């Protein structure tokens, strides 16, 4: 399976293509309007929301502040529960590790619940190369898998498709599909196709929403029941998670869970909430015989090492920031060319892929702040974007490389231009003179306004600056007071 490949470094071209695609744009606008409304309805009391957010933020910050210690505790308690714990430093290591676990079972048939971290490590492609079939069991993921695409949203992977497009896909891929545009029937068809896969699967792979250090419990939030099937039907369950998902106490979970689902889809609770605390025990009649947990770093410890950037890891992957982002709403998830699109993608991807690949992403924001306003754990996304912009532009001499790709967007011309601007802005008499001359000569000066005038006229400058106006006003009032006049 060759998945259509988008790249962060091609953001501008991909965004341009997306903007030209009217179906895609109306699919996204409609879906995002719907999700925004759902979230709004779920948080009708602003004061309660403010409290919930503050509480959630505190929990995440407390847990991150003890990350190394909590990870050790998690490992110990998972092991005590019979969960086998593995560590992976990067995507490659994780791929190999998971493939070995599957191969050691002699397995070739795998089902996988929705998990962005396995998208991040491109697990499906890797397994397919080894002759292992890995079927997505979440309906949205299943649809994008059939379409040979990657998810375009972290919560709703197939949100960019309308029902017609889904029906066409089923027509191509599912035998005896009775063509229909009824959403209920489409879902029914997908579910039936997946049932067979669950029965055949020898290994089930899932993500993790919260990993509880105190008890060694893995929590999984979902709506379709596919997560429960994936983690209980096959004899082996492999859970994969980024290291930042650990929480300290079991009591940390309910507040995070409640704000997660309400921020994401406006649901107060989801249909399923799985708490996995180990493999099947002696008298139990279901559940896997083996449970594995893979803890993935893949650039996260880089974010962790810097106090400001660490806030990136507070994310609980609700997707609210993308649902409210005016850029995401217009270009959709694929344009970003990253596993995590939208505002969160812009601040986490530089750690996963390096700033050189992602420097266009960090500038692709008007810093409107809609993301920060809705983020349930109060990640200051605009400030982090500004920080990353700064790091990308650091002049080479000031470079203290702690971030992959730091200074990769440094440009001598740009830097010099800003230095001149700063000089001018701090020399008032020259500044005032330059502005006054500017407004006089604007008509005759060639202004590099190419990108501006793509859809706008040049700004109309005043005939004299405010500085000049105020000078006149002052001299007038002086004359007035000298001649005894007043207003």
């Amino acid at each position, binding site marked *: 399976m060759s998945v259509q490949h988008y790249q962060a470094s091609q953001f501008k071209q991909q965004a341009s293509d997306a903007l030209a695609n009217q179906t895609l744009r109306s699919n996204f606008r409609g879906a995002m309007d719907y999700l925004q409304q759902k979230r709004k309805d779920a948080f009708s009391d602003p004061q309660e929301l403010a409290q919930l957010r503050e509480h959630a933020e505190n929990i995440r910050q407390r847990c991150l502040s003890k990350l190394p210690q909590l990870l050790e505790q998690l490992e110990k308690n998972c092991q005590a529960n019979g969960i086998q714990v593995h560590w992976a430093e990067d995507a490659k290591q994780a791929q190999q590790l998971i493939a070995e676990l599957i191969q050691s079972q002699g397995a070739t048939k795998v089902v996988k619940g929705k998990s962005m971290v396995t998208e991040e490590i491109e697990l499906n492609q890797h397994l397919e190369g080894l002759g292992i079939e890995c079927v997505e069991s979440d309906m949205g993921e299943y649809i994008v898998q059939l379409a040979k695409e990657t998810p375009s949203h972290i919560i709703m992977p197939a949100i960019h498709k309308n029902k017609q497009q889904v029906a066409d896909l089923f027509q191509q891929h599912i035998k005896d599909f009775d063509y229909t545009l009824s959403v209920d029937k489409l879902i029914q068809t997908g579910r039936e196709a997946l049932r067979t896969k669950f029965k055949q699967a020898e290994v089930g792979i899932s993500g993790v929403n919260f990993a509880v250090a105190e008890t060694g419990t893995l929590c999984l939030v979902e709506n379709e029941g596919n997560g429960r099937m994936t983690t209980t039907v096959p004899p082996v369950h492999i859970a994969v998670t980024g290291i930042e998902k650990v929480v300290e106490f079991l009591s940390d979970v309910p507040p995070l869970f409640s704000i997660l689902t309400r921020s994401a889809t406006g649901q107060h609770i989801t249909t399923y909430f799985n708490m996995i605390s180990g493999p099947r025990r002696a008298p139990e009649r279901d559940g896997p015989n083996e449970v594995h947990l893979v803890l993935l770093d893949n650039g996260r410890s880089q974010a962790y090492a810097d106090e400001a950037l660490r806030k990136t890891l507070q994310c609980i992957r609700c997707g609210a920031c993308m649902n409210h982002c*005016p850029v995401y709403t217009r270009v959709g998830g694929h344009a970003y060319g990253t596993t995590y699109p939208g505002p969160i993608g812009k601040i986490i991807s530089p750690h996963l892929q390096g700033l050189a690949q992602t420097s266009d992403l960090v500038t692709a924001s008007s810093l*409107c702040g809609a993301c920060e306003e809705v983020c349930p754990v109060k990640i200051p996304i605009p400030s982090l974007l*500004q920080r990353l912009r*700064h790091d990308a532009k650091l002049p080479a001499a000031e470079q203290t490389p702690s971030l992959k790709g730091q200074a990769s967007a440094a440009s001598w011309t740009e830097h010099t231009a*800003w230095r001149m601007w700063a000089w001018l802005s701090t020399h008032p008499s020259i500044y*005032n003179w330059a502005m006054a001359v500017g407004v006089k000569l604007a008509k005759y000066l060639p202004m590099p306004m190419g990108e501006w005038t793509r859809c706008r006229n040049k*700004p109309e400058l005043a005939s004299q600056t*405010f500085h000049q106006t105020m000078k006149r006003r002052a001299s007038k009032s002086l004359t007035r007071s000298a001649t005894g006049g007043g207003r």
Partner: protein
Amino acid sequence: MSETGLRIYPSKPSKVYFYATCLLDLLDPDGGLAAIELIEREGVEVIWVEKQSCCGQPAYTSGYQEQAKTVALSQMGLFPKDYPIVVMSGSCAGMMFKHYPHLFANDDIYADQAEAFAERVFEFSEFLAHICRAKLHDQGPLTSVVLHTSCSGRRELGIHASSQALLSQLDKVELKKAEYESECCGFGGSFSLRHSEISQAMVEDKARHLQGSGASYLVSADWGCLANINGHLAYRGEASRFNGQHLASFLWQRTKGAKA
């Protein structure tokens, strides 16, 4: 209102400093004069410091923090007395109120100064509505207006609420709402140049929604957004009367001649 917009306001001072911002300087001196008239009518003396230039935001949002700091520091030094500083744009006020302290947070020498300075910064409509508690007496004919607020003004200061409060005092002006009111107009400083196609999609939608409100006039307390939206309206040849003006100009036109 955004949480950061909740501020405890001081009582009305006798004097204020006036911060025009670089865009108002170049694009709209009349808006600045209108604002001064409105403030003076409240019995507050307005002090104009000629040496001011720009708040530093363009460099800051472009990733040039050192340059932004240099400029910020020079501006902070221009307002020595402890009078409030009234700023003619929400995004510049947001820069001074929220980002100056952030820029100097780890600076041993200037951190306190930046904090103290930020405390004195008020956006124009915020100052007029919450500190002067201005009472406006509408003198104009029946009309309607739609308000556009900058994202930073809205989310960092909550000034959409103070602009609304002022406009709603005008009893012959109907305040119309636009769809997607809180969505960004797509300006974002260098964003509009670096990602011009996305910015275009945003400003096209914004202009359509504002016009769709059916209002006769467009006002805003932010020249960044206005330059963007007006530029687009003009490009489509639809500028005319709907061309956005600064809130101060509109308020002054409607109320001049009235007693405070």
